[in-house]
């Protein structure tokens, strides 16, 4: 096929003008690069392909140079970044595949479908590795629930995620939701999927074998979602509402069939590669599979099954219709492949083949409409090195304090205000809408520190968590990046699991602005340092830039998805007090660190000050202690101390799980604890490296000795009280005392009340 005539325009194609190039989000520099690469002007379809593959969303052009600095290796890493999902090694030949991804822009204009298709996309990324999805998690950010539009977005996103995951049959095991004014115009929807596989069944998305056949499997291609990748690479404007038709529509039933068909195809050995047609659809899936395999591909677009007649090559290439797979199969196995697809009521249609000339070529019957050197198309995408410079306003914010004239209410009133603040309050209203028990493997359900699931037939289990606190990142991106990893590790370790590795979803504003790029760069430096210190390499993830609306950029929000290994899943430690009379211990040190705290934000409406510093060595020691104590069966509960400080952590330990009928009282004496701190600092500082644990009285001395041995400060703070008792914290000059049932009402009703339920 080499040396043929150059591609020609398809009938009806618009002429390539500078205005058209701009509309495709390509700069004139990038356009010159395209002409140089091709040795001629591109066709309309080619322009569309470059626009998609060289968009920020697909090419990572602004983030690539920074992402290279993240640690990605370790003995547990089976597959690092660059594939559909990362893979870590588990015992006995098992492995865990996992990834997190954003669907922010679609969800901002069409919350239900935007969020649903986000869940669908991340599921496909995991099952195309040959892994069966066993858990979903999601990290969500919205503006204040006092605003009707935010309530609409929040309700729609939760329903969208729920309806999709519930139908496919994947339990949601965790996640987090946070609210802040900065997300009002641009909510964040990050979905993470975790899958299990036997390491030997791992399949990679690499086309190979000249003559092998490309097949489209699953749904037909429609006109929905065209240019979704480019949409995700620009700021939201008032006109973004008109992008609604570009938001794809999800069909979880087809997804379920596709899941079963894909896993059966992979297990059958009849296929050599498989990839989701996700962002940029057929274009990115075929071009990336070819580039990874170092081969060319040739596709006859007229063969692609379409939903409507008259679709052009441009539309077929760039459609983001959901629930479609591109599969590469050996030519002598086509009948078997089609039979497996047919069993699951899906079409499998041959549309092209693997070639040896390295070209990315598309034709429409006999007419060549696209012909681009494959490797440069994917790998020589532009790289930007934007300027990074901290915004002076942020530096000022960091050194500011709340005005001394606004006195704080009593500690008890502060605690109640925090328990009622939607960012801290129970998210039961959210996770009740997600099936959390399907697959019958849920050991610790949502509502605690991390979700825990068993692996059938094995003694070990897996713990999963997502975390990120944008307040810290806003005030100090480096410390905030560290904090996100540290908190995720702590949450996983609280269940007794050893943190293994992370995936990250990096949600930021427009990277072309130096202040945003500085946040990105510094947050990544923090993530990298924390991952090195905690031995949790980065296995992949997603960068979401341009999270900006007319009111400005979202707060910088890196979200960390952490996976941990629990050697004995029956030793999993829950987050809540479980027996009256147990000892309550505070692990770690509390310092005067109210900067960026929930107290200042929820009670004083002030976000500022220096956020708490993360001592990574102390963090590692705390993780060691939690894991070791759980292994030895010493702990009855363990709960991370973070947002809202020690007071909120203690209250959560007492209030118990979302369906606890007899929550425990708690009697804690802090009169001799951290003597130099004010009661507010003592109760509400968000110092890292802390946890509250409970254990049987006769084990307390052992825990204290173990803590001393491992270098973790420990304070015996009190005892678990009677069922339905009083939550009491005694301070040097006063106390907090409330029936635990009263705390529960505040904590569990904060969100339903605001949502009108």
């Amino acid at each position, binding site marked *: 096929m080499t040396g043929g005539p150059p591609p020609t325009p398809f009938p009806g194609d618009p002429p390539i003008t500078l205005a058209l190039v701009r509309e495709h989000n390509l700069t004139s520099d990038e356009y010159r690069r395209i002409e140089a690469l091709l040795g001629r002007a591109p066709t309309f379809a080619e322009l569309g392909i470059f626009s998609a593959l060289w968009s920020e969303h697909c090419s990572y052009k602004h983030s690539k140079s920074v992402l290279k600095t993240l640690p990605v290796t370790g003995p547990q890493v089976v597959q690092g970044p660059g594939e559909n999902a990362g893979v870590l090694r588990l015992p006995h030949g098992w492995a865990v595949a996992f990834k997190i991804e954003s669907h922010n822009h679609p969800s901002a204009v069409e919350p239900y479908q935007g969020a649903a298709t986000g869940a669908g996309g991340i599921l496909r990324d995991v099952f195309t590795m040959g892994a069966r999805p066993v858990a979903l998690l999601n990290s969500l950010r919205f503006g204040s629930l006092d605003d009707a539009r935010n309530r609409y977005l929040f309700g729609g996103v939760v*329903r969208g995620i*729920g*309806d999709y995951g*519930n*139908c*496919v*049959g994947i339990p949601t095991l965790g996640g987090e939701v946070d609210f802040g004014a900065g997300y009002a115009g641009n909510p964040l929807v990050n979905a993470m999927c975790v899958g299990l596989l036997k390491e030997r069944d791992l399949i990679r998305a690499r086309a190979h074998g000249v003559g092998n056949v490309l097949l489209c499997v699953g749904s037909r291609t429609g006109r929905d979602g065209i240019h979704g990748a480019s949409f995700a690479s620009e700021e939201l404007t008032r006109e973004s509402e008109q992008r609604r038709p570009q938001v794809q529509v999800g*069909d*979880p*039933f*087809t997804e*379920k*069939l596709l899941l079963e068909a894909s896993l059966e195809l992979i297990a059958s050995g009849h296929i050599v590669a498989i990839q989701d047609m996700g962002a940029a659809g057929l274009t990115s899936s075929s071009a990336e599979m070819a580039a990874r395999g170092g081969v060319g591909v040739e596709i006859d677009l007229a063969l692609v099954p379409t939903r409507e007649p008259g679709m052009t090559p441009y539309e077929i290439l760039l459609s983001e219709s959901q629930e479609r797979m591109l599969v590469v199969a050996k030519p002598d196995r086509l009948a078997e492949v089609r039979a497996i697809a047919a069993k*699951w*009521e899906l079409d499998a249609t041959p549309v092209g083949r693997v070639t040896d000339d390295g070209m990315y070529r598309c034709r429409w019957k006999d007419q060549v409409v696209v012909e681009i050197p494959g490797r440069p198309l994917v790998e020589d995408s532009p790289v930007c090195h934007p300027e990074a410079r901290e915004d002076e306003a942020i530096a000022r914010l960091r050194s500011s304090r709340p005005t001394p004239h606004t006195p704080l209410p009593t500690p008890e009133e502060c605690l109640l205000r925090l328990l009622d603040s939607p960012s801290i309050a129970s998210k039961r209203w959210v*996770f*009740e*809408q*997600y*099936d*959390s*028990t*399907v*697959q*019958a*493997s*849920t*050991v610790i359900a949502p509502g605690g520190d991390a979700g825990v699931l*068993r692996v*059938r037939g094995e003694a070990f289990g897996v713990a999963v968590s997502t975390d990120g606190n944008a307040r810290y990142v806003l005030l100090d991106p480096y410390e905030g990046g560290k904090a996100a990893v540290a908190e995720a590790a702590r949450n996983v370790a609280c269940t007794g699991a050893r943190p293994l590795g992370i995936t990250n979803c990096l949600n930021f504003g427009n990277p072309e602005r130096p202040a945003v790029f500085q946040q990105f760069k510094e947050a990544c430096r923090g993530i990298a340092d924390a991952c090195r210190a905690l031995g949790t390499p980065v296995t992949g993830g997603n960068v979401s830039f341009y999270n900006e609306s007319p009111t400005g950029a979202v707060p910088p929000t890196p979200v960390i998805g952490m996976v941990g290994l629990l050697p004995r*899943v*029956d030793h999993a430690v829950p987050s809540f007090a479980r027996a009256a009379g147990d000892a309550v211990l505070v692990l770690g040190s509390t310092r005067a660190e109210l900067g960026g705290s929930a107290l200042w934000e929820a009670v004083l409406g002030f976000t500022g000050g220096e956020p708490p510093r993360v001592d990574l060595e102390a963090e590692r020691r705390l993780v060691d202690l939690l894991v070791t104590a759980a292994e030895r069966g010493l702990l009855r509960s363990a709960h991370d101390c973070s947002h809202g400080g020690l007071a909120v952590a203690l209250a959560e330990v007492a209030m118990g799980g*979302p*369906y606890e009928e007899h929550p425990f009282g708690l009697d804690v004496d802090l009169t001799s604890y951290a003597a130099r701190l004010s009661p507010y600092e003592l109760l509400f500082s968000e110092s890292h490296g802390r946890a509250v644990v409970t254990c049987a009285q006769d084990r307390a001395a052992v825990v204290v000795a173990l803590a001393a041995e491992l270098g973790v400060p420990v304070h015996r703070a009190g005892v678990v009280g009677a069922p339905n008792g009083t939550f009491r914290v005694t301070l040097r000059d006063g106390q907090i005392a409330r029936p635990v049932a009263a705390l529960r009402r505040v904590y569990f009703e904060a969100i339903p009340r605001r949502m009108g*339920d």
Partner: protein
Amino acid sequence: MSKRVAVVVFPGSNCDADTLAAARAAGSDAYYVWHRDTDLRQADVVILPGGFSYGDYLRSGAIARFSPVMRAVEAHALGGGPVLGICNGFQILCEAGLLSGGLMRNARLKFLSRPVRVRVEATDTPFTCLSTTGEELVLPIAHGDGRYVADAHTAAELEADARVVWRYVGDNPNGSTNDIAGICSVARNVVGIMPHPERRNEALLGGPDGARVFQSMEAGHATQHAGALRAVGGRHDGM
């Protein structure tokens, strides 16, 4: 000898594997039957598992009732063979007319996933024969269309015949008629339950309560013959 338990797989079933595992854990010889299969003669018991059969795009269970396997399920049921429908399976049994009443959108209009408490009300079914009347179980629910609804006449009949098998205790999660969580047919061999016993059948998963259902199924001597006798007799005095 172990019971032969057929777990029917519809496109969109997603509790098939959990149900198969729970049946096997109770000692049954459980196997899958594809929705296109039409032969259930090898089965002692048939289970329709939870999920979203055919996507449930029309109405939960409304399309599944027309699938080829349902003729065989009907034949098995009419012959007195035990049939259990869990969640979506319950919806399908109602749509197929093998159980009376139907399942509607939850009263609060939202999908609801949480543990609930149910009381065993009837122990003369193949799936509750090891339970005692009044025994309380904690089981998970996960449904959007879980509100069991029957007209006043049907509900009165269900109560008079003691065909309410499980009832929610305390909080009724979906607003069902008479707090109904599960019922059986007139012949008592066809049983539907909204909560998921297969998801809570051992300590690791929160407790063993759900295992009672599968252990009853394995222990019961409800043969097709015995069921047929009961169907003829209408009322009966338990097993």
